[in-house]
């Protein structure tokens, strides 16, 4: 039985002496999700996943059950399982903890997927910054194989042959985008593909492919072990389970926490159990949710906010990767957004013009506001540019650049207006 407010994903993290040890992993219910799965009808596995209502933890929050069903129905004898461990979202360091301190849970989730889809090959694409963790993960893979959970005839089931290979990233944020990640695994440059087709139909080496985040895979064994309903009950109506959150910025207790979806944001920010309030003695001003491409909320508008998918959507916010970056009242929103824009200008892969040039123009415009050299009309130009980059970019990176900017503009318009040099008179008739 799992109860609310009990760590589910981090349970072993705090207990295991050696994270890669299969025997120890099993002492804490490790591999019991897989053992359940192989006794179940495959349709029944999919039903449990639907019931659990786990939303993808990489950021897009797409219902995992639906994604798995799509792949299950996809035509093709060769299906690939891919774990996205390219965590590169500033403010996010959750996958790292699972990969390092509970790698076998991620492996178990991937093996369950391998079983369900009769896949032969799984890949985990791990960011190049986590080289030490790649070694630990490899050790966990080797141990799992020795114990018969990977390799040939897994658990004595004839034909259940499945292996997992670690592929290293090498420093490209855009490879966190699933189709770019697949290109990178194929040994190409990691530029996104044009979609559709859906990766579940045409993915790695043009075969049907499942791509899920580390935290999502780690949740799968829990669902099968405890049942979909029990998992769902940990969260709320619009998303089951617990969520790993990463607190950083001007908050006292920076770090990784596991919370039930549905926890109050005030608790997360101020209770001693979690954030513990401001680290600088200054009042908190705004929060950047879910990574650089996530929206920003003003702390004063979030007093009644519930940290859940629907709770944040209600406030035009989103959970994204689980990053919660908190800034105090000494940080100017424009200054902050300049740095965010610089990040995107740096990480745009350059494949499509609206994103390549647009991110640069956005950065230039924001810099003008920050230096108080913006002129009348620049605000409109900025808004137009944000709209163009959102609508014309080919992949999620370009399409979401405007999220933080737009929410910053909405909550703190006066800080932008203060960046406009009054002396300039508007050009009559307009330029366009």
């Amino acid at each position: 039985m799992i109860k609310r407010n009990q760590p589910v994903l981090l349970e072993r993290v705090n207990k295991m002496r050696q994270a890669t040890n299969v025997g120890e992993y099993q002492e804490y219910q490790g591999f019991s999700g897989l053992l359940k799965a192989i006794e179940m009808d495959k349709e029944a596995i999919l039903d449990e996943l639907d019931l659990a209502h786990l939303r993808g933890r990489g950021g897009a929050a797409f219902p995992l059950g639906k994604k798995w069903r799509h792949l299950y129905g996809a035509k093709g004898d060769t299906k690939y399982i891919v774990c996205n461990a390219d965590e590169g979202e500033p403010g996010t360091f959750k996958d790292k903890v699972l990969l390092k301190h509970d790698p076998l849970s991620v492996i178990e989730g991937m093996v369950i997927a391998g079983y369900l889809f009769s896949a032969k090959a799984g890949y985990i694409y791990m960011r190049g910054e986590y080289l030490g963790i790649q070694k630990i993960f490899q050790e966990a893979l080797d141990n799992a194989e020795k114990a018969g959970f990977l390799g040939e005839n897994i658990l004595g089931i004839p034909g259940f042959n499945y292996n997992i290979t670690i592929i290293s990233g090498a420093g490209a944020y855009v490879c966190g985008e699933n189709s770019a990640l697949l290109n990178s695994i194929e040994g190409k440059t990691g530029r996104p593909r044009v979609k559709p087709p859906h990766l579940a139909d045409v993915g790695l080496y043009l075969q049907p492919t499942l791509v899920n985040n580390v935290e999502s895979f780690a949740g799968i064994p829990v669902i099968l072990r405890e049942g979909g309903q029990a998992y769902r009950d940990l969260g709320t109506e619009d998303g089951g389970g617990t969520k790993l959150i990463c607190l950083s910025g001007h908050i006292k207790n920076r770090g990784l926490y596991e919370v039930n979806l549905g926890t109050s944001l005030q608790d997360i920010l101020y209770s001693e159990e979690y954030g513990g309030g401001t680290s600088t003695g200054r009042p908190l001003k705004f929060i950047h949710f879910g990574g650089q491409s996530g929206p920003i909320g003003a702390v004063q508008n979030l007093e009644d906010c519930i940290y859940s998918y629907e709770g944040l959507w209600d406030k035009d916010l989103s959970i994204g990767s689980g990053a919660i970056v908190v800034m105090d009242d000494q940080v100017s929103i424009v200054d902050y957004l300049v740095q965010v824009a610089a990040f995107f200008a740096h990480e745009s892969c350059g494949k499509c013009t609206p994103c390549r040039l647009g991110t640069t123009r956005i950065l230039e415009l924001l810099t003008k506001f920050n230096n108080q050299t913006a002129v009348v009309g620049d605000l409109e130009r900025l808004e137009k540019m944000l709209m163009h980059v959102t609508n014309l970019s080919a992949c999620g990176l370009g399409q979401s650049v405007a999220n933080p900017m737009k929410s910053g503009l909405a909550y703190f318009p006066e800080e932008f207006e203060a960046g406009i040099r009054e002396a300039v008179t508007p050009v009559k008739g307009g330029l366009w």
Partner: protein
Amino acid sequence: MSSLSLSEKEAIILANDSDPQRILNMLIAIQYGSEEGYIDEATAQLVGDHLHLSQARVYEILSFYAILKTEPQAKYVLKICNSTPCLFTGGTMLAEVLETILEVPADEPTPDGLFMYHSIPCIGACDKGPVIKIKDTVFADLTEAKVYQLIDDLQRGCYQEL
């Protein structure tokens, strides 16, 4: 640390099964194993030959991924996280202090070839900012004094593994 010999480089390629899927694993391992911290032309050729890839394909990859370098690097490349969580919790101090100590601007090696520093995006240590990363080692929760200490320690060869 000296640079890898030809056979050591080949051993890394073979340990990755000469598998084009793992080209990044190989290139990173070779680069981190070399004192100059970059993939030279002969090495790019070597990798290409083993993987049956053209030199152009290898260079396309070398130029796309930020960790991979095609020019010699200083012995210690100090990478500063400049993403917002770190930058606004003391990160701006790092570049200033390093410029003061090392007396070179970002991206320029010190005359003795020992140090170079530059900014990179998030390295996944956002709860410990400000941070500097050298190869795979992260120096966290830095203060001005700790940066002076770090440079001093590096100069005295305290970190053999780096």
